[in-house]
């Protein structure tokens, strides 16, 4: 065999090795871009009689006159197929980036929905999961009259908060599924409320397995943001103390003791006093220390209350159960952890490092 033939034989063998070793098929389905409508948003809610009502916005992405398409289906994939019968272009799901799930459906359980999306190779796991309270489809129909690229601007908003990793408990399909199947954490998702012409962030929806169990709102949500990981929040308002803390950064250290009977959470909070409307004189060091102590005490009290309430509901959105994991020892079962979590003593310790923006005298 000549050298030339040997070279080509090598190439052909390499080619087929690549084809089959990776399990890929070269016979891919054509999706010529002008012939498809890659939707980026799904809204899913209960449709009655155990049906799902699935809605989307078409044409997607492009700033043209749009409409909301809604279909009733037993399965999510069936809904996708029925969309194609109602629209002149093929609606494809490879670019779906947001799924808005109605609160009522979330309370009944979204495990099947999550599994379907997770196992669909077309759907990216970088898909934002959002729980909505109210008529989201109605909101879409109303808003499409006013802003054409509504689907795209919604995506940009969610992506912004996902990048910031604070302020809003953004979660994608991958993170949600990971928590759903972890024995040591309760899945969370952001919860929005539909008001006649606005979509307002309500707080964090906390799931017990695949069912929406409770939601954390306002101060509880802010405290949850602070302690769930090292985070940065632009402003924390504490109305009871008439104070607003700005540019807040938290550094969280959690520790479970040896006999797994108590958990301590130390939060170092860095920031500055953005606004104060109370009676203390902030230029006086003693009064400033006193205010610091009040804020620390307030945060400790409320965080402890929040954690206690989560313990009572057997929810662990902070994934504190992962502290029980050690190399060379078998992990606890979910039941075992939740029992321990319910009975753990929780100590929260805040350390404030605040700048005052004014000269302080002793």
């Amino acid at each position, binding site marked *: 065999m000549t050298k030339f033939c040997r070279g080509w034989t090598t190439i052909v063998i390499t080619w087929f090795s690549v084809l089959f070793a990776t399990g890929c098929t*070269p016979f891919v389905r054509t999706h010529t*871009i002008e012939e498809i409508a890659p939707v980026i948003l799904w809204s899913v809610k209960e449709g009655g009689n155990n049906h799902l009502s699935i809605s989307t916005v078409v044409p997607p992405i492009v700033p043209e006159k749009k409409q909301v398409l809604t279909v009733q289906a037993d399965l999510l994939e069936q809904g996708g197929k029925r969309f194609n019968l109602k629209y002149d272009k093929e609606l494809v799901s490879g670019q779906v980036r947001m799924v808005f799930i109605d609160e009522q459906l979330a309370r009944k359980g979204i495990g099947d929905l999550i599994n379907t999306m997770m196992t669909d190779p077309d759907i990216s796991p970088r898909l934002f999961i959002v729980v909505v309270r109210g008529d989201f489809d109605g909101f879409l129909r109303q808003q499409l009259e006013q802003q054409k690229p509504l689907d795209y601007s919604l995506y940009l908003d969610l992506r912004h908060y996902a990048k910031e990793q604070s302020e809003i408990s953004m979660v994608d399909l991958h993170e949600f599924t990971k928590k759903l199947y972890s024995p040591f954490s309760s899945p969370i998702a952001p919860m929005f409320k539909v008001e006649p012409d606005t979509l307002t962030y309500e707080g964090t929806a906390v799931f017990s397995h695949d069912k929406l169990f409770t939601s954390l709102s306002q101060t509880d949500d802010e405290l949850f943001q602070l302690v769930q990981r090292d985070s940065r929040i632009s402003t924390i308002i504490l109305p009871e103390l008439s104070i607003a803390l700005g540019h807040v950064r938290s550094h969280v250290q959690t520790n479970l003791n040896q006999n797994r009977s108590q958990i301590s959470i130390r939060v170092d909070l860095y920031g500055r006093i953005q606004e104060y409307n109370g009676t203390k004189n902030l230029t006086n060091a003693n009064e400033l220390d006193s205010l610091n102590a009040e804020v620390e005490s307030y945060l400790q009290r409320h965080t402890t209350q929040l954690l206690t309430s989560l313990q009572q509901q057997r929810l662990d959105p902070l994934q504190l159960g992962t502290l029980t994991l050690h190399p060379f020892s078998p992990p606890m079962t979910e039941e075992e952890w939740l029992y321990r979590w319910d009975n753990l003593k929780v100590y929260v310790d805040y350390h404030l490092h605040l700048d005052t923006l004014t000269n302080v005298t002793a």
Partner: protein
Amino acid sequence: MRSKRDNGNRIAAHHNAAILSLQSLTDILVGIDDAEIIKQEAFGSRKIGLIYIRTLVDLERLNESIIKPLKTRPTAPLLQCVESANVSQFNTLEQAERNLMSGCVLVNDMIENVWWAIKLPTSLGRSVQPSDTESVVYGAKESFTEQLDQNITLIRRRLPVVALKTEKFSIGTLSNTSIVLMYLEGITNPNFIKIARSKIKRIDFDQFLADSQVAAFMDDNIHSVFPQFLSTDRPDQCSWSLGLGKVVILVDGSPFALVAPITFFHLFQSPEDYFLRWIVASLFRSTRYASFLLSSLLVPLYVALTTYNYQVVPIQILGVLLESRSRLPFSPFWEALLMLVTLQILNEASLRMPTKAGQTLGVVGGIVIGEAAVTAGFVSNVLIVLVGISAIASFLVPNYQLAKSNTVLQFLLLILAALFGIFGIAVGLLVILAHLNALTSLRQPYLAPVAPFFAREWSDLFIRAPLPWQSTRPKSLAPLQRWRMGGRKS
């Protein structure tokens, strides 16, 4: 059965049979108008015949060096009259013919029947000019010319050492082209010299007009689109390569030299890399690699994404693509093919047209055709931008032959992208990588120092590290002297 070599040399063999005489030479010069035969001229007591080709000989030097001395010194022996150092005696018709055609004046002492060849070639040729193909802003401006000796001089000036050897060969049964193999004795691996020498000796063809034709006979893989010799017209590039332990081949009549062995990565190195500050040079070199990838992949990726893999397009760009392609009559593949073929037509046209007309062509091609094609709805404005970027990026590759090869790769990847999407591009790239890995230059691996791996040489690969750090010659070249430092005399 007559062999190929016998067949090729039949013209020379025919003359070998004849006996060298003034008459036999006169016979073979029949029909050559510029041949001058001066018979039986009496220069004093001597009877001398002079034969030369008027267009190959410096006539002024002929008068000064031969005719005038012969007339003014009628009794002196012939050799004492000739004022030239380059005199040789010959006695066969074949030698006579070769000398005649290389610019010699043949002198026949008709009394003693002795033949002399006095080399007086005309110095016709262009002067040393700046390089067009490898121009640099900061650095030497000299480039090779078509004259072999002048090119050797340009290299010798940069390497004034006796270790710089020049071995001369003659190839081409018709063109009788001189080629010179240059190397640094004591540095260059003797194996490379041996391989180059044997490859040159095996060359069998009638005519050689350019260095690339010589390279075509010396390539290890003649079917590859990748050049296995670095073709350069810069003497500084040649001397640098010689210093590293490579060989250089100069071809008479070609303003380019061949450098070998080379690797794929050498094709991205510009002489300017070694003149600029190392950080700046490294940035530029990295940009060249990126540009090569851009120019080969940008348009195929567009076709793959718009035909199959819309999922991986960022949403922001997806919106732009959807809008730009919404009313086009062609599929992405035909649209891209149309644009690339148009670009090739414009490229070829601009090379063949006079410089001033070329500017007009640029305006017509770039602005009028591009803009009109978008307005008419033949192509999308996104593709126009991508083809533009791809075309400009292809000019960043300093090696002209690789830049041309890149076009072939682009078309190959385009077809694979149209058939199999991103998977096709990945397979195409893998095949190209496998081919590069199998390729050799003077039987040395083409992907060194990546495969085989030579860690030290990475300092002059994707970046160009400071020169003091490059204290050794590339290990992949197996030089006889590894260290480049330590030669300072006190």
